[in-house]
């Protein structure tokens, strides 16, 4: 058996079962930065590539934009240096990364989502039929609409008075396990999936490329036809009324450029760069230079010119720079 063991160790690069498996070598190849992401972010990435390479002609930025999920796979298999995605990484994606490298992928916000552009991480608007007299709604009331056990939940049950008070609340939302649905559940009900399905209608994205597409629009269109409805959808769809949402700072906001950029609208989203950086360390030098460009005024403006993503606020850029440089 001894010779068998020798052959085995030769073929497995010294790996001994039970002794721990070293992570693969990560880090961008010399002169290259490999960025993976979904097609919906390809224009933004191309703008950043052009701007960065102009100032750094010695660096080749390589783009691979097939999907958010494949981008995270690129990162945890050390084939990508940056995964650029319009959502938070899922638990499964972070688990995959963590089990390879033994720390979590670092999340660095690089842009805000749009106000209401499909495929560009639009804010989730709370929408009702135009005849609904509601003036504003709180996060607590929204959670009750999703979770309260009564199948016949009425508008008065969630604290709404007026003509609709006795009418049932019918909820329209993107599929609960889509990126939008996960975000919504995380923000409102701590990720809970046991919803009161009897009064909830879900809409699925029809896009084939793995990014959010038209489910938010279809949810909005449904409420335009339903006087007693409440939709988590996209703002600006004809026949809908956008309801201000009261946030933790006790101010009511609708999704718009300023409330999203300031972070006051709490159902807005962000675009994140995920990178491989051990806790307590800065990111790889080449990646750091690229992200510093992305977070610069020039980088933020170039993204704004080719998309509806909203630039980070000055405070947001400062926070993200700190994540890049953290040591």
């Amino acid at each position: 058996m001894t010779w068998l063991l020798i052959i085995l160790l030769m073929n497995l690069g010294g790996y001994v079962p039970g002794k721990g498996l070293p992570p693969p070598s990560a880090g961008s190849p010399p002169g290259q930065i490999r960025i993976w992401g979904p097609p919906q972010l390809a224009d933004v990435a191309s703008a950043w590539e052009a701007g960065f390479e102009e100032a750094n002609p010695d660096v080749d930025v390589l783009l691979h934009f097939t999907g958010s999920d494949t981008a995270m796979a690129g990162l945890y298999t050390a084939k990508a240096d940056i995964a650029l995605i319009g959502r938070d990484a899922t638990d499964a994606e972070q688990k995959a990364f963590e089990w390879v490298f033994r720390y979590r992928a670092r999340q660095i916000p690089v842009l805000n989502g749009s106000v209401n552009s499909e495929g560009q991480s639009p804010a989730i608007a709370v929408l009702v039929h135009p005849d609904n007299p509601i003036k504003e709604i709180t996060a607590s009331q929204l959670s009750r609409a999703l979770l309260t056990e009564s199948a016949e939940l009425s508008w008065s049950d969630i604290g709404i008075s007026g003509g609709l008070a006795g009418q049932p609340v019918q909820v329209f939302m993107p599929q609960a396990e889509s990126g939008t649905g996960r975000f919504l559940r995380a923000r409102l009900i701590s990720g809970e999936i046991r919803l009161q399905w009897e009064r909830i209608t879900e809409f699925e994205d029809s896009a084939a490329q793995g990014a959010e597409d038209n489910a938010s629009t279809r949810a909005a269109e449904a409420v335009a036809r339903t006087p007693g409805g409440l939709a988590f959808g996209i703002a600006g769809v004809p026949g809908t009324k956008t309801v201000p949402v009261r946030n933790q700072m006790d101010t009511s906001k609708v999704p718009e450029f300023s409330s999203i950029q300031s972070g006051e609208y709490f159902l807005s989203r962000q675009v994140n760069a995920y990178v491989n950086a051990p806790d307590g360390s800065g990111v790889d030098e080449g990646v750091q230079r690229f992200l510093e460009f992305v977070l610069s005024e020039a980088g933020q403006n170039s993204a704004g010119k080719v998309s509806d993503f909203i630039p980070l606020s000055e405070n947001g850029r400062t926070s993200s720079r700190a994540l890049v440089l953290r040591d």
Partner: protein
Amino acid sequence: MRSSGVQVSSISRRQFATGLLCLAGCQLVPGSGKAAPAPFRSESILDQFQPYEPRGVASGTVSLWGHGSFKRDFMGRLVNRWISEFHQRQPGVDFEYEMYGTASAIGALYTGAGNLAILGEEISPAAKKAFEREKGYSPTGVMVATGSLDVNYFDYAHMVFVHRDNPVRKLSLGQLEAVFGTECRSGCKPIRAWGELGAQGKWHAQAIQPYGWETDEDFGLFFRERVLGDSHRWNPSIREFAHLKYPDGTQYDHGQRILDALAQDRYGIAISNIRYQNPSVRPLDLGWHDGGPYYAPTPETLISQQYPLTRIIPAYIDRTPGQSLASGLTEFVRFMLSREGQRALIEESGYLPIDPRLAIRQQAELV
């Protein structure tokens, strides 16, 4: 609709299971649903596998990703025996061992970091979808092991329990879907009272209280795919249990917590495993279809896939349509499916072998 039809490529969780249903006609156990609890006799089943016979001299590198972690090397002993025995027969094949966990394995396949993904459970729909988006075709799956009856970390079968006083003795997948779900994708109607499952007398009007794993974790996802037709609309009244970890490093397993809770609830129904059984609860026989046949979980009914909540262990490869695989990769997969490979599996892991007829069929499709 639960259909049948064996196929090696593009195998999903349900396809793996239902694909094997056509083999159920060649029963390894009587169809009574009351298989004798005799010890599992591995030699008799190993004789039915074909010995490994090399198809020429193989070469290349097999880069393995899959089931493992930095905390526990679940498959290390097994995979290393596979490699060492295979290497005696095919010394020209090199190996890279990157078993970081099931979660990264399919990603490694479509990014090109690896060329053989050995999973610790069925492929997730999200991983399959990502592969298809990246490559434009489906990953090719090969079933290499059957999940265990009751061995921790080796994908034990899911079992459904009721209180010992409960008159219900057996259920179909459709009935389980109606109890644990709300959407009823197979066409059933939600069931919420014991009378709807045939219980009479004082049981008739009593509400059913479901218990189970966390619905968004691996165990819950398997049950959801196999029973709920991948619907995420669970019965909102389900009580979920996670592992409870104590400061001294020990843990109160989720399956134990579930059955301990069921012991206190005469009107409950619970998903768990027989390893956690207590005197107050009883497992049900299960059937794929209303009207049966119904099967108790035994090694034989798991291997034959007659028991509906059997787990399967697949390996996946990236096989471009119309192109042949590298010889080293093909030969190694053929070896895993051989008599020698399955003997190693029995001796070095907690898994059960696959059905020998499926092994032979899969080997033939790997040409």
